[in-house]
């Protein structure tokens, strides 16, 4: 594996395409703000044409004719199957157990897939104030499984997150499974993390494991951008590069302005 000079696509494009592919076979997906938004919209146009997109703003079965500008946009309403109050969306759809995949972004993630989107530093006197939970904490608890999409760096893949906004595998699978079972959580927690360098899944003990390396990325590059000693799958795969069709959809239809892919 060597770094090629110009693979013909950006790391962000590879990340979005890989995340979209992970949705193959999924039925109902809760779409988060930012990168999840473009990944899920790409999936609906490629591997998962019957994917039902749920937006926390109150939309089930969105059929946007352009990439929504945020998680609330008039294009996710027009032509959708159902528009409901947020009380019903969070109560009946999410907490009621109808969401197969919750798709989250993260500012910090730890080896067990616990997520911070609240603050960097101390909560009362933060170095950086981040957006906060939004719907993420309840998605992490109630969606049947959680996909994470984020760029990786030593600042984002950390030994210890500064604030636990959204629970993942807590301190490990044994503890997480017990707590999720005893608490009657519907969700099994995080199942995949897609970054600009690779694809991660979780070992039986709940710890993250590199499963696939994107074209151009190296194991050394991955290790340099993770704040703990990352596990690597015995049979480390190579992520197939984006197809011409996938790239065309991202560049021409979904993100012609390059907002997500710059």
């Amino acid at each position: 594996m060597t770094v090629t000079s110009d693979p013909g696509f950006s790391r962000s494009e590879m990340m979005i395409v890989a995340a979209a592919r992970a949705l193959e076979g999924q039925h109902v997906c809760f779409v988060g703000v930012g990168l999840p938004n473009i990944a899920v919209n790409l999936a609906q146009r490629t591997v998962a044409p019957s994917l039902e997109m749920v937006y926390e703003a109150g939309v089930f079965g969105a059929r946007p004719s352009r990439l929504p500008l945020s998680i609330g946009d008039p294009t996710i309403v027009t032509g959708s199957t159902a528009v409901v109050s947020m009380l019903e969306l969070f109560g009946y759809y999410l907490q009621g157990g109808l969401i197969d995949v919750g798709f989250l972004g993260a500012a910090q993630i730890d080896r067990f897939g616990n997520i911070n989107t609240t603050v960097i530093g101390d909560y009362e006197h933060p170095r950086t104030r981040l957006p906060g939970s939004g719907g993420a904490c309840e998605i992490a608890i109630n969606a049947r499984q959680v996909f994470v999409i984020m760029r990786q760096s030593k600042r984002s893949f950390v030994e210890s997150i500064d604030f636990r906004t959204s629970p993942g595998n807590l301190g490990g699978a044994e503890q997480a499974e017990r707590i999720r079972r005893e608490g009657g959580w519907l969700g099994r927690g995080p199942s995949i993390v897609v970054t600009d360098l690779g694809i991660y899944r979780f070992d039986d003990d709940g710890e993250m494991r590199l499963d696939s390396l994107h074209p151009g990325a190296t194991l050394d590059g991955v290790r340099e951008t993770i704040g703990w000693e990352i596990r690597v799958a015995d049979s480390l795969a190579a992520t197939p590069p984006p197809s011409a069709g996938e790239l065309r959809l991202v560049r021409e239809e979904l993100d012609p302005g390059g907002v997500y892919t710059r």
Partner: protein
Amino acid sequence: MTAPKVASMRDAIADLVRDGDTVAIEGFTHLIGFSAGHEIIRQRRRDLTLARLTPDLVYDQMIAGGVASKLIFSWLGNPGVGGLGAIRRRIEGEIRDQPLALEEYSHFGMVGRYTAGAMNLPFFPLRSYFETDLPVANPLIRPVESPYSDERIYAVPPLKPDVAIVHAQRASAAGDTQVWGLLGCQKEVAFAADRVIVVVEELVEDEVVRSDPNRTIIPGLIVDAVVLEPWGAHPSYVQGAYDRDNRFYLDWDPITRDEDAIQAWLEEWVYGVADRAEYMAKLGAERMASLRPSAAAPSGSVDYGAYR
């Protein structure tokens, strides 16, 4: 986007309603699923627990038909007319070989039970029941402590029926269902239930539903069967389609007072017909015409706008 789920009433009931199930046929005065109730009688289901705010004639008929051993409810009567004899005879002990257990709430309590079921909550809190005998009659109505003061209020437990049967004006073949007029707790009971049967006056294209997504109360996602059965809510009503058949409700009063009369009625109008189409043919075109609205009252159209 879901696969079509259109089924006949016979198949829907045969596939989805099982002996011993908890079944909720909802619809508050509006959209009461009589035709589904009749098919359950015809298929001789037994030992059902029937849940419904207002048991109404439909449960009087079903209980006379012997399908149920328990009733969960909040108001028991023939609204504006009188009592429900088949049910009362089993409660008051006049008919002893078909005992009927009761679990009784208020309207808000029943709505709260379905809502807790739909939201996967262990309880629904409400301010009802204080200083009444209802929590004595039904020990499932329990106090709950607020974590913010010494205030105590009451709670009801979630109700998650095995089957919910919802009548509606229209749905797509995938089960995306729209209702206007009284909504009752059709949405809550559907989300609370394990299996959902939607019975509609009209089957419409997906695009009709998508042209007005704010009117959708139930997504096909949670629907197991869509039954096209116009007039399936008779003698109750469907806003914009037909009126409550008040004559039927009045005529029911002498029938329900007499167990033989009610059994004869079932013989004629339930066992004696194959399906709702035959029932309506028997009721006759003149009666149907008399129940049509006196004029149209269009909602008017609003613009969602296309955003490309």
